């Protein structure tokens, strides 16, 4: 009996390890034996009390002695020992020594034996005959106490548990104490004596430090105070912002996607539904019948994909017929469309532009045309402004030279030279109102008659003394012959070839003429007072285009088609060679300061040379789509201009600083239009007024225009 209990306890110990076994046990205990076949089986075995293996309770007969079971058995051994020792200590008097004495060895050892072990006397204990299943079942059916019977493998016998024992087991299963009489929550009895015995362990008086404020605490407080003052400790921590995120934001740019690696490109988001896709959109989204009809006329691609409709309720909205197709298309898009990361530099194009001052701050500059000088019948090739700014002379292809009053645009005088005028130039001396005109092969020095009586006398003298000389000069030099022209009362310089330009020296005595096809006599310098001609430039590298004097020093510029040569007239040598890099130079102008040169070319480019800087152009302005016909500097205002065959003139601000470290500032200011094209030619000449910020332009439409500030 006791052994049975022990075996039950052992089974219970096993149940604690193995849930399967315990379940079985529970079933065996709780359920009625007739109900379950499994239990019957067990009871069968119990009744037979066959020496089956330990696992028979749970395992099938076919698989005895699995390694797991054996392990568990090993565990059980120690457990059983504990139990036994416990039980022995508890109720040793009740304990009946078990029949078998083999001790705590695996029962398998006796599996194939005839006996199960040895009794106290050392005799073999025979295994009982095993009943077959039907017999044990029938026996179990008859016996009402069968469910309480447990087969004890160790002793190979059937044990019947008493009702008390079953109770104990059920209590133990419920986690209660085995005996009902034990009170686990009995009131606590305090055995320790707490009251003072009158004999303290130490009789020392209470130390002083118990009454003095703690120095350590004080230090700590000071430390905190300092930290607070320094701001190391802050009390009012900023409230954490509620974590919000952009629901519809494009996550392709979000930082968290970057860490997936460079190759991660999020799929493009499908278009979100708008108001018009609501089941009940506002009236303005719903197209009229006419609009719907008009959709039919549109191309398939342009047609709106979705036509908003209105429904009474969400319930009446039909299934979306294109759902499948659209999802399919979306899937196609997602896996067929290659996704590449476009390297887009996010730069404001405005910021790439150079910072230029506002045009408003650079006033005055010519802007509007107010005056026109009409009278010529052919394209006006050249104009020149009197140094005082009162008169203007113009030469035209119709063979006339006209002098205009600038203020009223009145034509004062007309000379009919008979040949197309190529170039015209006022003498820079205000007291010598004389014009140099190049027409055909000749250069005419013409008295305009605008001086007062005294000046007129001087001019007459200057142009008159000439009369005797031509023969002498003509005899000595065949290059140019100075002849008196009786018709216009002027000097005629007869060249061998056609003359293109004539330019005065700043002192008004010398002037230079350019004969492009003159080979070694292409550039000539003449002296008016002595009626003398020199030819200092025997060898020219290239076809000469024009020649100008330096505005302040004795330096001479010769422009050939490719480059500009700068000569010092006193030392008589080449100072500098400016390489333009343009196709064909058409015009040249010298800054009044003398250190900067602009060159216009036939491919529409204008080059600014800073002669102190380099022999290459400082800036090349490509503004005109057609040939530049002339370029000009203003004498006093920081302005320069170019005119072109595209019928426009461009005005620029060109500030030259006296500080050599500062580069010239060039700002485009204004495009002056107004001329009309004639025979493919546009504006043929432009000149600034010497004192006002005004620009004169001579057009192929035979009009001269004055643009004022």
């Amino acid at each position, binding site marked *: 009996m006791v052994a049975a209990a022990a075996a039950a306890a052992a089974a219970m110990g096993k149940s604690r390890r193995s849930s399967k076994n315990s379940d079985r046990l529970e079933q065996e205990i709780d359920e009625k034996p007739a109900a379950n076949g499994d239990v019957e089986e067990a009871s069968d075995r119990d009744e037979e009390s066959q020496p089956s293996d330990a696992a028979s309770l749970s395992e099938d007969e076919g698989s005895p002695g699995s390694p797991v079971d054996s392990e568990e058995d090993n565990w059980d051994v120690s457990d059983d020992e504990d139990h036994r020792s416990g039980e022995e200590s508890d109720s040793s008097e009740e304990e009946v020594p078990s029949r078998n004495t083999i001790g705590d060895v695996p029962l398998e050892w006796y599996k194939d034996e005839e006996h199960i072990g040895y009794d106290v006397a050392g005799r073999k204990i025979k295994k009982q005959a095993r009943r077959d299943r039907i017999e044990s079942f029938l026996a179990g059916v008859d016996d009402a106490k069968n469910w309480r019977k447990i087969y004890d493998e160790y002793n190979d016998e059937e044990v019947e548990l008493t009702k008390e024992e079953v109770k104990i087991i059920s209590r133990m299963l419920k986690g209660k104490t085995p005996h009902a009489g034990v009170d686990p929550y009995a009131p606590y009895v305090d055995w320790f004596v707490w009251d003072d015995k009158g004999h303290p362990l130490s009789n020392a008086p209470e130390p002083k430090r118990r009454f003095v404020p703690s120095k350590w605490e004080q230090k700590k407080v000071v430390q905190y105070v300092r930290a607070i003052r320094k701001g190391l400790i802050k009390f009012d921590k900023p409230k954490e912002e509620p974590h919000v995120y952009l629901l519809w934001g494009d996550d392709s740019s979000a930082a968290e996607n970057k860490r997936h690696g460079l190759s991660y490109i999020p799929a493009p988001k499908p278009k979100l539904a708008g108001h018009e896709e609501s089941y009940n959109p506002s009236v303005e989204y719903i197209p009229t019948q006419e609009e719907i009809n008009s959709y039919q006329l549109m191309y398939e691609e342009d047609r709106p994909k979705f036509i908003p409709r209105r429904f009474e309720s969400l319930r009446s909205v039909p299934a979306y017929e294109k759902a499948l197709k659209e999802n399919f298309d979306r899937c196609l898009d997602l896996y067929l469309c290659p996704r590449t990361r476009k390297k887009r530099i996010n730069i404001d194009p405005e910021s790439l532009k150079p910072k230029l001052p506002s045009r408003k701050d650079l006033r005055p500059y010519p802007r509007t045309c107010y005056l026109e000088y009409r009278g010529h019948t052919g394209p006006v090739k050249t104009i020149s402004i009197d140094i005082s700014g*009162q008169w203007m002379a113009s030469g035209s292809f119709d063979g006339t030279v006209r002098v205009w009053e600038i*203020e009223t645009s009145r034509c004062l005088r007309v000379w009919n030279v008979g040949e197309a005028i190529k170039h015209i130039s006022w003498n820079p001396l205000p007291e010598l109102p004389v014009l140099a005109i190049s027409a055909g092969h000749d250069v005419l020095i013409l008295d305009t008659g605008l001086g007062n009586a005294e000046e007129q006398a001087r001019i007459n003298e200057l142009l008159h003394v000439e009369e005797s000389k031509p023969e002498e000069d003509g005899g000595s030099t065949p290059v140019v012959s100075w002849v008196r022209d009786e018709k216009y009362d002027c000097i005629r310089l007869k060249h061998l070839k056609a003359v293109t330009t004539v330019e005065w020296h700043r002192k008004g005595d010398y002037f230079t003429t350019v004969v492009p096809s003159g080979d070694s006599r292409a550039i000539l310098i003449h002296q008016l007072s002595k009626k003398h001609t020199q030819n200092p430039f025997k060898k020219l590298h290239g076809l000469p285009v024009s020649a100008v004097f330096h505005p302040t020093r004795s330096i001479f510029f010769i422009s050939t088609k490719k480059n500009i040569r700068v000569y010092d007239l006193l030392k008589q040598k080449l100072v500098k060679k400016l390489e333009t890099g343009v196709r064909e130079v058409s015009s040249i102008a010298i800054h009044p300061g003398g250190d900067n040169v602009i060159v216009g070319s036939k491919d529409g480019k204008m080059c600014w040379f800073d002669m102190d800087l380099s022999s290459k152009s400082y800036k090349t302005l490509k503004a005109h789509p057609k040939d530049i016909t002339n370029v000009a500097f203003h004498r006093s205002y920081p302005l320069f201009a170019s005119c072109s065959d595209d019928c426009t003139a461009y005005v620029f601000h060109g500030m030259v600083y006296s500080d050599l470290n500062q580069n010239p500032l060039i700002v485009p200011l204004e495009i002056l239009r107004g001329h009309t094209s004639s025979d493919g030619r546009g504006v043929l000449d432009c000149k600034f007024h010497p004192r006002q910020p005004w620009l004169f332009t001579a057009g192929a439409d035979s009009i001269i225009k004055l643009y004022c500030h």
Partner: protein
Amino acid sequence: MDFGVAGGAGGSEEAARRVRVRFTTKLGPPLRVPSAPLAVPSNLTRMGLSEIVNLLLENTCAEHETQPFDFLIDGELIRLPLEEFLLAKGISAEKVLEIEYIKAVAPRKQQDPCLHDDWVSSVDGSNPSYILTGCYDGIARLWKGGAACTHILAGHSGAITSAHIINGKVESENRFHIATGSKDRTLRLWKFDDAEHLEHPVNIREYKILQGHTSSVQSISSDPSGDMICSGSWDSSIKLWDVKNSEVQGDTVSIKKRKLVSDTANHVESQFEGVAASTLVGHSQSVSSIVWPERETIYSASWDHSVRQWDVPTGQEMWNMACGKVLNCLDIGGESSALIAAGGSDPILRIWDPRKPGTLAPVFQFSTHSSWISACKWHCKSWFHLLSASYDGKVMLWDLRTAWPLAIVDSHKEKVLCADWWKNDSVISGGADSKLLICSGVSIQ
């Protein structure tokens, strides 16, 4: 009184808003309307207002002749429909509006313009019966009544740029003292009596040639007393000439000259030449216009973008204003004869108030012209009226109280080079079409 129908706007405008107005005027009694407030439609233009006033005048006086009026609210001329005007000026339409009416300016074209041989460069209308013109052919002409040429003042070898009648106190109505400046660098003085011969124009010779300028003379003006004249020239100087003293000598010289007329011309000319009394130097470019409104002060405008005021006794520059544009014309007038009007190389007529401290911004700008302004003149009686002539061929009449021109005279086919008031109610102008045009009927109170 309700003027919905009579208001010119018609019966269809019944629904329009109404404004209560009271008409006031400074005109004489026959043109005065009862001052009772009226309700008029608010969308009336000045035409409609003019009709109302004419109707009221007819009611009071049967033989009233309909004539146009101009209307002022708070000193501003109405140039918009009443409603818009009130809105633009922020005037409440709840109260009774005080509208002052004045006679409208409606210039009448002159019948036949006086033809010249060349461009008319200068005109002077200071004499009520004669008009003096200077012409590019070097001849100054005197036109009696603006119709017939009575005197020809020939002598200049260059175009006349400026002709001026020196109306001194001693001069009687029919004795003329005239100064002309020319591009031949000289000024010439002329003196003659208004003789009663109309058949043939009389040729007059100058009695004195004033030489000294080294470039063309651009403008002439005379002292209010007529003793001195000043001239501005392209050589950027201003010269003052004493004409009072030289007059006596001049007479004698001219007698001498007649005696010596058979002698060599050079010798004679040297005899009746005059020299400048003083020179005012300061401008850096051509002095294009000069005005001598008071005895002590001369104003000059120049191509160097400045207007300067000169003190005559000391010859010093008193005041200088840069305006940024080339100036062609200048006149002093307006309120207490202190406003400066000037125009130049842009289509804007500007008016400055030199008494205004600290600023050089113009107080008025009129920008209806489309080209250079060649002449501007204040009306000598009115504070508000001035005229301007421009190279766009138009003469415009301005009232300071509105930004739009009161009237535009566009009879000229070419540039208008000069313009002036004549007899206080006419505008005379000459231009590059060689015509002297007279527009009368410009009555200004």
